[in-house]
């Protein structure tokens, strides 16, 4: 959670995923300007101090023994680099792992590809308009790849995409984790603002119980 300004407006912190972090204590976020807070953030100059509160919540749980398939759509690519790094550190065998990145067009995907390629994992990309690699959705890429039967899927992106991927994983009996978004005020379980309906009938709280959930628990609102 990051405060984007020092004044009283915008008032609340904004939640972001950690894109990269290094042991020396630097973190990198990758974000899109969608409103006032991100607008201000985009104008922050090198050397300015920001109030950062985190890391918070539960991230992806890496299944160390099973082949991994990481799927990032649009800004859902942001947390995937961090996860891919962790996977390449934690897992012994990454030869069967696959990263699928998708976006609306070239500019949403291409700038990030080099970072992922460094990790040496297999990469497949798509864009809605075909301006970079395959034309289509990440779901198409996912369908086109023959994944190992014991594959684990890690997914972040727009809700509609995650819903589709979840359904496909269910079909193939792949365990699937999704990282979801919600409006947040506190980021620490105090306000109960970030509720998310779950199959069990009670609300989960994205900031504390998530943002990563087992896809099976989710009730998609689409």
């Amino acid at each position, binding site marked *: 959670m990051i*405060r984007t300004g020092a004044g*009283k407006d915008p008032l*609340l912190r904004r939640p972001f995923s950690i894109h990269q972090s290094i042991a020396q204590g630097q973190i990198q976020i990758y974000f899109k300007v969608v409103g006032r807070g991100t607008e201000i953030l985009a104008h922050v100059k090198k050397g300015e101090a920001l109030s950062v509160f985190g890391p918070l919540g539960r991230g992806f749980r890496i299944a160390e023994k099973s082949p991994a398939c990481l799927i990032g759509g649009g800004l859902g690519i942001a947390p995937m680099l961090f996860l891919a790094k962790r996977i390449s550190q934690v897992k012994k065998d990454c030869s069967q792992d696959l990263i699928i990145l998708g976006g609306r067009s070239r500019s949403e995907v291409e700038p990030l590809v080099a970072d992922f390629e460094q990790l040496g994992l297999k990469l497949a990309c798509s864009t809605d308009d075909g301006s970079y690699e395959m034309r289509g959705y990440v779901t198409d890429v996912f369908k086109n790849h023959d994944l190992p039967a014991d594959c684990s899927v890690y997914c972040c992106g727009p809700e509609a995409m995650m819903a589709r991927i979840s359904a496909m994983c269910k079909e193939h009996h792949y365990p699937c984790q999704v990282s979801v978004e919600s409006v947040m005020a506190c980021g*620490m379980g105090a306000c*109960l603002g970030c*509720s998310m309906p779950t199959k069990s009938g009670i609300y989960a709280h994205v900031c504390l119980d998530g943002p990563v959930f087992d896809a099976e628990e989710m009730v998609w609102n689409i």
Partner: protein
Amino acid sequence: MEYLKESDSIPDLRVKIGTLVLDNPVMTASGTFGYAREFEPLMNLRRLGAIIVKGISLHPRAGNPPPRIVETACGMLNAIGLQNVGVERFIKEKMEYLGNLSVPIIVNVLGDSLEEYRQITERLCHCTAVAAIEVNISCPNVKKGGVAFGTDPSMAAAVTKVVKQESTVPVIVKLSPNVTDIVAIAAAVESEGADAVSLINTLIGMAVNLKTRRPELANVIGGLSGPAIKPVALRMVYQVARAVRIPVIGIGGIETAEDALEFMLAGATAIQVGTANFINPRASEEVVEGIGDYALRENLHSIRELIGALKVG
């Protein structure tokens, strides 16, 4: 060089709410501090005057569907929908931790009928760890077609009476600002024996998303809190404090010690930090520190000297 001498006495920050003595006037507002444990790693809970926990009802409540919050200009709207685990689970799961904190724990209660208020009070008074009860009367009275208890002096008085009859600890009645005459409500609850009033709860508001042409909150309307409402809160505290004899607890947009002290000048005996906890988890502790510093700097013998000390006219 001037010889620096320790001030003879550290200023006395204690204030009294009914029979309850607080080490300092700073509490956390209900619904903005979870069940306190969430803040344990981030601050020293023991420095607070009191902790008020999330509103508890007789039975668990699931709350509203999302989205439940939205930011507005210098404020936020929430429609949490009074989500809580219910009094039994609260006592079983949260009370032990809270009881060991050695800070007065005030439980905020809500109900949709007088009988619910009665039962929950009875249940809580069996817990030794409960230092006081704060009664949220902004809840809809189901019997009266959903009109909030807090919007009518006689309904507000009725709730107070029921809770007071049952309670063995001080009773604070938390007032709704969505009324024509908050002084009349305060007077009504005072006359039924409320030990203190706290105000304000949130103002009812709404936000619209032009792109989707939908309300921002699934519940359509929600409660406005944060710095935006501070002027309304200060005004109501000022008016009520001049009209009642029981202590008034000020709430609304308090982020700093300066804000808190302004409420005390306007007549508040104590204050609560709400939305600010979300922005700065240490906000409440910093308010305690700032009040202490101010009292020292201004050579106050007791912080109580400030209560209602506003110079008017």
